């Protein structure tokens, strides 16, 4: 499975995209829950308002995608130089 980075927990993202060595989704959610408790309410509210220009995700080395079917061997241009 190509490594996925970016909008890590956008809804609909399958848990198998977690990075190798990372805790599974349940553990991660627990850890995040613990963290949330330490983050002030106003900080969470602020971060939820601070969207950037455009969403970001990168899958493996694939910088371009032209509708190819998803496989590990899908070609991108990120590794061609």
């Amino acid at each position, binding site marked *: 499975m190509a*490594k*996925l*980075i*970016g*909008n*890590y*927990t*956008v809804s*609909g*993202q*399958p848990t198998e*995209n977690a990075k190798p060595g990372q805790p599974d989704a349940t553990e991660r959610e627990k850890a*995040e829950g613990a*963290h*949330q408790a330490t*983050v002030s309410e*106003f*900080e*969470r*509210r*602020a*971060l*939820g*308002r*601070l*969207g*950037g*220009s*455009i*969403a*970001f*995700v*990168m*899958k*493996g*080395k*694939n*910088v*371009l*995608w*032209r*509708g190819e079917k*998803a496989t590990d061997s899908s070609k991108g*241009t*990120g*590794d*061609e*130089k």
Partner: protein
Amino acid sequence: MKSSLDRSCLDLVAQATFQKTAEIGFQHAKQNLPYMKQTVLDVPRTSPEKGTSAISMAAGPSLHRRQTIQTIKNLNYRGTLIVADGAMGHCLRNGLIPDYVVCVDPHPTWIIRWFGDPDLATRADDDYFRRQDLDPALNTKERERNDELIRLVNEHGPKIKVIMATCVAPNVVARCRDAGMSLYWWNPICDDYDVPDSHTRRLYDLTGMPCMVTGGNGGASAWIFANAVLQKSPVAFVGMDLGYAPGTPLSKTQYYHELIKVYPEERLSEAYIEIHNPYLNETWYTDPTYYWYRQCFLDVVKQSGWTAYNCTEGGTLFGEGIEWMALDHFIKEQ
């Protein structure tokens, strides 16, 4: 101020970005469909005399602090110049014509300002441009500056190719077309395109345009475009501070108005992150959104394997895969 932002905080910014831009971007793409004649892969390459190097330009404060454009002109840089839309006006006002301008932010009323807004007088008043340090020229005499930019874009537009994301507001598309600019379209990769309800796949199915990683903002997209589509090497970047110079008032930061709505004033500084830049031996600071941009860019560099030459000469962006370099040194090496 903090010294870092952890993953769960970055997630909140990432999710806010997706929620803010995805659906409006899709609606914009539907309206832009009739104008999608050429894709980003059809873009004409630069002439061989320009060589293989490129400089991508964002609109950070170091453009002005370091007189970046003067350096590019004084050293007669002959390579390819790709700019984020926010940096184009600064280039044109200073007599530098970019080869390409990259436009990706779907905001409905702000982005057209970078091209000169013919309807500025009818817009609701805001101080978005006046309070930021991206382009100090817009901080005063806003109307006159806007008129000047309309003239400059109309004059030079036909020489500049626009690398236009399908999600960009239709008023920006109309403005570019009116100015005689050629448009080359792409979809931003916004989520995992292998997921059945993927927003990116939905955009692709609607438009048929190729999809490209964004890096989260126009400056990063410009650098990615230079590498991925133009296949330039080496590619430097300038004006990508992703932060605020020491001494910049919090009220002059991009997201100040959003933060002050939520943070108690006496705790506002807690929203920001201090970063010591060892190359400058200066401590800059940044806000959560810029910090997210920084992490996005570091991720792209690491995962792509491309070397990024940071010739900004300021800011917060350094790390694995990024070579810090003076701009004159980079240009003289080409």
